[in-house]
């Protein structure tokens, strides 16, 4: 900024001057084209910036716009223009600026190395940051073009659709049923019987409170006409286990669609009667 300010102070130029002039030299030839995008109203800029995919994209645009070669990387001109974009960007879209600022710093560094003969001698061949930037620009441009090409390539939905025919009615999926051996069957039976006996040996009053038996009992207590309150069905003398069995038996009956369970409102008492829910 102060760089340009200095220029302005020493050589004030009227703002209206706009005739086309050689702006740069490409391969030794003067380039006479006014880059019309040098000044963009900030409002428009915001929109334009959104179309750039990042600092490399913006840089590529500036280079291509003026028909420079990437490999020539006219650092001085491009840096100036780039800075303008970045400055405006910093105003309108601060959160975007991070990546762009890194590039700005890199451009500035490259520029300084070109302009300072001393630094240039030291650095010369090895480790030229400009070479690295050229490599990155070329690499990015390749991908940019590849993406454009991919976008143009014929694709499903937009350019073609899959052609299908319906299978005739007699096409039915084939189910492969699992294989079962007699041995598995015999052992399954033996295991079930062994376990049943183990239950019996361990006595258990659970047998007394079998869910099935309780379900049958409930079926006999309940009637299909009137609702019975859940509290009437629970026998507190059976203890917590009895309450649980009764409750499970009711749920089991509901599952089998043999009783209807109703509740007027949340936390209200539950009522049960014989009958099923409408099957849908």
């Amino acid at each position, binding site marked *: *900024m102060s*760089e*340009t*300010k200095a*220029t*302005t102070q020493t*050589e004030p*130029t009227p*703002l*209206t*001057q*706009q005739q086309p002039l050689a*702006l*740069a*030299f490409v*391969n030794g030839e003067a380039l006479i084209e006014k880059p019309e995008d040098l000044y963009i109203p*900030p409002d428009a800029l915001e929109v334009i910036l959104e179309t750039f*995919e990042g*600092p*490399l994209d913006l840089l590529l645009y500036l280079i291509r716009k003026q028909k420079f*070669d990437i*490999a*020539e990387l006219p*650092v*001085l*001109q491009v*840096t*100036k223009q780039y800075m*303008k974009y*970045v400055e405006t960007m*910093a*105003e309108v879209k601060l959160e975007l600026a991070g990546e762009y*600022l890194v590039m700005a*710093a890199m*451009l*500035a*560094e490259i520029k*300084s190395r*070109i*302009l*300072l*003969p001393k630094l240039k001698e030291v650095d010369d061949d090895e480790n030229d940051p*400009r070479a690295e930037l050229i490599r990155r620009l070329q*690499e*990015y*441009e*390749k*991908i*940019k073009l*590849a*993406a454009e090409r*991919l976008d143009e390539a*014929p*694709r*499903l*939905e937009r350019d*073609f659709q*899959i*052609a299908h*025919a319906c299978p005739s009615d007699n096409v039915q999926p084939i189910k492969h049923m699992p294989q079962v051996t007699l041995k598995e069957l015999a052992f399954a039976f033996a295991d079930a019987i062994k376990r049943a006996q183990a239950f019996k040996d361990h006595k258990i009053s659970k047998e007394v409170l079998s869910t099935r038996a309780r379900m049958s009992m409930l079926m006999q207590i309940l009637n299909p006409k009137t609702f019975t309150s859940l509290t009437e069905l629970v026998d507190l003398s059976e203890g917590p286990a009895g309450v649980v069995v009764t409750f499970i038996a009711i749920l089991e009956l509901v599952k089998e669609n043999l009783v209807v369970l109703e509740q007027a409102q949340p936390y209200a008492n539950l009522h049960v009667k014989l009958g099923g829910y409408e099957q849908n």
Partner: protein
Amino acid sequence: MNKISDEQLKQLVEAAIFVADHPLSIKKLHATVLTDFDVSNAQLTSVLNEIELDYAPRGIQLVQVASGYRFQSNSGLGPLLSRLWQETVPKYSRAMLETLSLIAYRQPITRGEIEEIRGVAVSSQIVKNLSERDWIKIVGHKEVPGRPALYATTDAFLNYFALSSLSELPSAEEFEGEHEDSLQASLKIIDDPEQENQADQNASNENGAIEDAGEDITENEASQQDNDNLQPPTQSVH
């Protein structure tokens, strides 16, 4: 193993490809509809070639994509056929296409590597979208600190673009030629400080008006501090 005539084989293979839910590979054809028949790969390939030729003058064609053979409408009919659907065809953003292209051409690649080449962060949304479309998948992890995921494209990606393999993508080298630059010649010019200075002077002198207009606006609207932050070390040069 039963025998099947060429005519029957052609009908069966054609119908199978038409009714299947997914493209059918030669292997899949053997394992399903041809399982009872004694059909050589050569015989099958020749029948597929015949079918391809049969459909050449028609509105649809037999194509080989990554996961097998399928029929699809001619690309030229796309815009007309799209009238069959209410929805508009999805468009993909440049960020998405560039990310996808990088994964396609440079796979397996990490997110960090994509960001390095594109010069901007890759949004999680893009990676998520591409994964949800089943166009990319994680194929492993790079053995560097953080073990970042390595991405690659899928067969579904190739199917979508009607490609049978990645080698059918335009070669990356083609893009290099598009703006053929002679690196040698250009470096010579840039290395010549006089010319570079001259060009710079030209630019600042003759273009000063337009540039200044831009600068003024920037300076007015941005705080001095912001400008200092932006200021590269170049200011000492002039």
